[in-house]
């Protein structure tokens, strides 16, 4: 079982992931949509939501839309990242077909530890970077794991790195040069309102232009103009990377 603040059963994690994916794609997660995605009946969903709410991971009033709490959002995101990392490993390294990989990933993802996942992610990126067309040995990879050296013996000076397996995450995780679409804005109050008003609504395209010298704040281009915001504010913006 993955280590976390609260032990979650596999199916609970799956629910969280389903909610997250729905929100990323369509901004909102409704009970009937969750049921469809999980291939279960609505009462099962309500039951699951109740226990998730009890753990403080979702906010749900009966018959209303499902909101993830901050904790729930973070948890859901990490589950989703695990899933896509595992699936990516299965397809691009092991060569499985998409549907097969999807089915396997569903099973594998719950069993994997955070550290193991981290190494897996690094392996996928490393393999992609140096494996296609080039070659590397396993000891090259171990060196990379140990201190970041690539097969030629250099240490790249990357200060910003986002594993290529991650398709949806917080805006604050993105690196300059990346682009994507806004999925939804979490949080509440003044900052959320301000972000929405400035045009950071669902489906809006954006580019990450740069970060300030110390990594914070970041500057993005959106709706034709340049907007700067702190990483702590960008954490509330969930995006899909292109």
């Amino acid at each position, binding site marked *: 079982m993955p280590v976390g603040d609260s032990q979650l059963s596999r199916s609970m994690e799956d629910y969280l992931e389903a909610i997250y994916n729905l929100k990323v794609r369509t*901004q*909102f*997660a*409704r009970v009937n949509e969750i049921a469809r995605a999980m291939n279960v009946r609505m009462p099962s969903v309500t039951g699951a939501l109740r226990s998730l709410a009890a753990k403080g991971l979702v906010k749900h009033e009966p*018959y*209303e*839309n499902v*909101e993830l709490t901050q904790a729930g959002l973070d948890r859901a995101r990490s589950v989703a990242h695990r899933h896509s990392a595992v699936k990516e490993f299965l397809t691009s390294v092991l060569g499985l077909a998409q549907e097969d990989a999807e089915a396997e990933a569903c099973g594998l993802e719950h069993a994997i530890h955070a550290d193991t996942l981290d190494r897996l992610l690094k392996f996928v990126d490393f393999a992609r970077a140096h494996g296609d067309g080039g070659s590397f040995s396993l000891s090259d990879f171990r060196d990379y794991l140990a201190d970041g050296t690539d097969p030629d013996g250099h240490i790249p000076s990357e200060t910003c790195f986002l594993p290529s397996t991650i398709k949806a995450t917080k805006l604050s995780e993105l690196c300059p040069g990346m682009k994507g679409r806004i999925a*939804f*804005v979490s949080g509440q109050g*003044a*900052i*959320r*309102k*301000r*972000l*929405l*008003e*400035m*045009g950071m*609504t*669902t489906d*809006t395209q954006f580019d990450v*232009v*740069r*970060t*300030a*010298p*110390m*990594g*914070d*704040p970041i*500057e993005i*281009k959106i*709706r*034709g*103009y*340049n*907007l*700067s*915001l*702190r990483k702590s*504010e960008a954490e509330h913006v969930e995006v899909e990377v292109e």
Partner: protein
Amino acid sequence: MAVNEPSEIVIALVGNPNSGKTTVFNELTGARQHVGNWPGVTVERKEGSTRHKGHTFRVVDLPGIYSLAAYSQEEVVARNFLLNEHVDAIVNIVDASNLERNLYLTTEILELGIPTIVALNMVDVAENMGQQLDLDRFGSLLGAPIVPAVAAKGEGMSEILDRVIETIRDGAGFGNPAPEMKQRSARHTPEVEIEVSKLAERLRLDECGVGPLRWLLIRAVEGDKDARLRLSQCAPNPEQALKRVDETRRHLEQGFGGDMESVIANGRYGFIGGLMREIVTRKATADKVAASDKIDDILLHRWLGIPIFLALMWLTFELTFTVGGFFQHWIQLGISALGTWAYAALPPGPLGSLIVNGVIAGVGGVIVFIPNIAIIFIMISLLEDSGYMARAAFLMDRSMHMVGLHGKSFIPLLMGFGCNVPAVMATRTLETREDRLLTILINPLMSCTARLPIYILFTGIFFSANGAMVIFSIYALGVLLAVASGKLFRRVFFRKAASPFVMELPPYRMPTLRGTILHVWERTALFLSKAGTVILAASIVIWTLGSLPWGVKFASEGSLVGQIGRVIEPLVRPLGFDWKAAVALLFGIGAKEIVVSTLGVLYGGGHAGGLQSALAKSFTPLTAYGFMVVSLIYIPCIATIAAIKRETNSWKWTTFAVGYSLALAYAMGFAVYRLGMVVGFR
């Protein structure tokens, strides 16, 4: 709502920051309001007037806002004005090269039920970008007339006024799109409209105070505190009313599966998207922002950014000191010559003494610094007008955050280098009271332009070899103390979370020569008038104190001013100053320039080289530096104190600000002097 030949038409200018609103205001009213392109330049509404085609217009410039949601001070000011005051028409300034975001506010304005015309500003920039719009379609889809303009060149201004007259007369501009457009252009989704109508029925209200009911209800359902307050004030049963509002909200959120804020924001931007598709006949090809981006690649570079910023700051001081010094020298010669001539030309007696030892010594002592002041104005003006200031805030935010300040505080603080009064007011851009108070308290440590003559005077005498560095060190010391004080205050008083930083980085603009010169000229002229009035009066008063009782040696210890000095002297002796310096500091409370004019009067500046040589004898490099440090920190000038009182609305904080500055000044002056002596300086 046609008005029959009103005596005065009141129009309000509303728009995003950086949309050119204040330029429009200046062009319409002939005023010289300060134009800068970052939030906080206009924090108050400004009024002016103009006549056109037989009508008198009262033009009100409101602070730049992104929406009417009333989260920040400026939004509250603008919104309250539009709702509470009588406004005949709104002129919504929209930046044509940045349409989407600008139109968000437009959609909100059109719900207010006030005739609105849209002034599409910067159409020249949009055209350069390759964008072409169908303005007629734009107007009919939006339900308000569109007037293209280039405010920076003064184009479109009379057309704006023409349209205002027409629109009021025709009863138009209410945001009602032409009938055939209605289906495609509903600003809010039909569900929202339906629910809100049902709500209105259930509440049995036809109107509620000012503003259209529909607007109020939508805002209340969104969760706007102010709207809910107003509603509860006019509903027969407030509790019931709010309950119904909450029910409507829940019902809508359920239906959409999401929260009201997103729904509404999505709805507005959705409308805007649709509108854009209909009216943009050719999309922008050249990306205006691209050129700015390239410049930013250098100016905001990871390693170069901050050094470049510091270099620019240093350059400012270097130019001010050396180039300014060059011209200053000539003016000094002129003043000395004038003094000598006057001394010879006037008969001996009180009048001659007044003119030479009072007026020329005092006022001349300050006027001599005009070149330096003009240069610093030019530099500040260039940095502002080009758009670099927003970049500076971007660069500095992290550092400021680490010391408990806010990146947006940076701008009011930077403005403090010009004058602390508008800087204190500019703190209104900060959204929490804690951030505002904090920034106000440390603001006076930002060395304002009025103190510059003091630095240049002493630096010129004692540190002429490294003038710029020394002055830079004083400014830097001010910044450091501000940062340290900020950290201290943050820990002791203000622990609440900081305001959001979200801020636009407007594209760079080439400051116009005409604009800059006008800017600097106007400010220099104001400085001259201040010299001709306040400083003149103060110098005369000091001369009086220095000449009475009559017969006493001028400005000696026996005179009135000397006696005052004798009383204060014990206080400043530990800092290494004599009574004349103390008196100068005392009178400097009225305005910091008075420090220099007082020194001029007391040390005999009416005679050639008199002030410099006298000071060279009474001060040492160490005490001179100490004096500059003390002038940097000690008590803000009266105008600033008044501003602080106004902005904080609290005697407690104002007194604290004054007390803190005095205490800190004393401590620093003491430290500089004593430690300096220990280290071996004299």
